């Protein structure tokens, strides 16, 4: 991997969980940022595009679906990998997220810390092999 640490954005309203993922990501050597709802995420994203966004769906202020509608990943941020990370495995919501440009859905409760980090590694590997460095 390059000298710059890959950056991950966690969008998760539950403070305990948000903190858990951030702690884990920092321990694993990633550049980690966190938002607690879609609106917070949008303002953070004005500064910089991360490599991966983990997006919860049910959140106050602005939920994940609404966030995707504003962020328009497919049209405006094709290089950002969006992983829907929700404990609500309702087919309809997940389908909608896919239609709005999410790349993957993972049940939050399924991912142990080890699996969570493996998902990130796999995603980053796939990203770098799909997209040769643009310089």
């Amino acid at each position, binding site marked *: 991997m390059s000298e710059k640490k890959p950056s991950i954005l966690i969008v998760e309203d*539950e403070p*305990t*969980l948000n903190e*858990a*993922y951030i*702690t*884990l990501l920092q*321990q*694993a050597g990633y550049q980690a940022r966190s938002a607690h709802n879609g609106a917070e995420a949008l303002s953070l994203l004005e500064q910089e595009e991360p490599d991966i966004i983990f997006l919860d769906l049910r959140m106050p202020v602005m939920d994940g679906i609404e966030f995707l509608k504003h962020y328009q990943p497919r049209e405006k941020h094709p290089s950002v990998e969006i992983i829907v990370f929700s*404990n*609500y*495995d*309702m*087919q309809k919501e997940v389908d909608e997220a896919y239609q709005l440009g999410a790349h993957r859905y993972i049940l*939050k*409760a399924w991912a*142990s*810390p*080890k699996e969570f980090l493996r998902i990130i590694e796999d995603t980053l590997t796939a990203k770098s092999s799909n997209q040769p460095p643009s310089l």
Partner: protein
Amino acid sequence: MTTPKPNKIRLLLVDDDEDDYLIVRSLVEKIPDTPFSLDWTPSFSEAKRFLNDADHDLYLIDYRLGRHSGLELLEFAAPHTRPEPFIILTGAGDKDIEKSAMKLGAADYLVKGSFDRELLSRTLHYALQRKQMETQRVQHLLELNQAKDEFISVASHQLRTPATGVKQYLGMVLEGFMGEVPETQRTMLEKAYESNERQLRIVSDLLKVAQVDAGKVVLRRDEVPVRQLLEDILKEQRDTFAARQQTTELVGANGESYAWIDRDAVRMALENIIDNAGKYSSPHTRVTITIEDKPRAVMVHIQDEGVGIKKSDQSRLFQKFSRIENPLSTTVGGTGLGLYWAKRIIDLHDGRLSFTSAPGKGSTFSILLPKPKTNPQ
């Protein structure tokens, strides 16, 4: 013959005798400010068409309909399932017919030749009123049931969040992110982690069952190569079987047998049954999976050498929350929902899930999965 009259309560009289029709019509017309409009058919088959169209608010049906009877028509209409009341017209003293008509769902009866416009009017109004109340009650029950489904869904999803927190923090400690964990503590933390995992599994099972019970499972069918699917499952469960010192074997269908199924749903059902086969077997046993290609279906037999199922327990196996006692049941700790769900899912596919079992020798679960229709009709 039926011209819809706005704001009128539309009655349909089924009677093969025109004179009777004329009598009923004149009575209906004599009701002061009659709210009713009356249509008539003498024909049994036309009556059936009217019933299918469901353009009327109430049906008056004569018991005698030429070669047919009013009871036949009641049976066809199934009044319990409809919002309109049915009133049967009988001759005097036909007590048995009245009883049968009530059993078939008639709201009331009138004895021909012995009712006037007042009795007719009252009977019609009461029948309509009772039916309306019944419909409201059914609606209320449906709403309650839906509220229950939603409650289960929301509550179960909510339960996942704290358990996910436990999983993350315990997981981080166990995986050494916070420094080395002494062996004695590790053992305890692992138990806590496993206990939490079990809670998460129960929540998932509850949600799956709630969905299937609420009729909310939509199958996304595809042509799925069955052997491939089973190989994937066995690959994923390899470590679990190895940990129990058990072996697995997959036999049959080297040429591809395709089933017309929802891959994810059937995969979960098969995973559950294969996992059970291992869980309810001792170490050093084997689970044999055989694929049998049939003309219209693919059969999968999952055979274990495990504890088996007692005859007296066999009928309960697919029931919700049925925990069946056996030498391994306390250590396995299932939820009693897995097989119920698996059966419901296979049934939704128009497939079949069955088993044979001998206590102490083992069980064979057979899953029949339909093949894609070669010439779609």
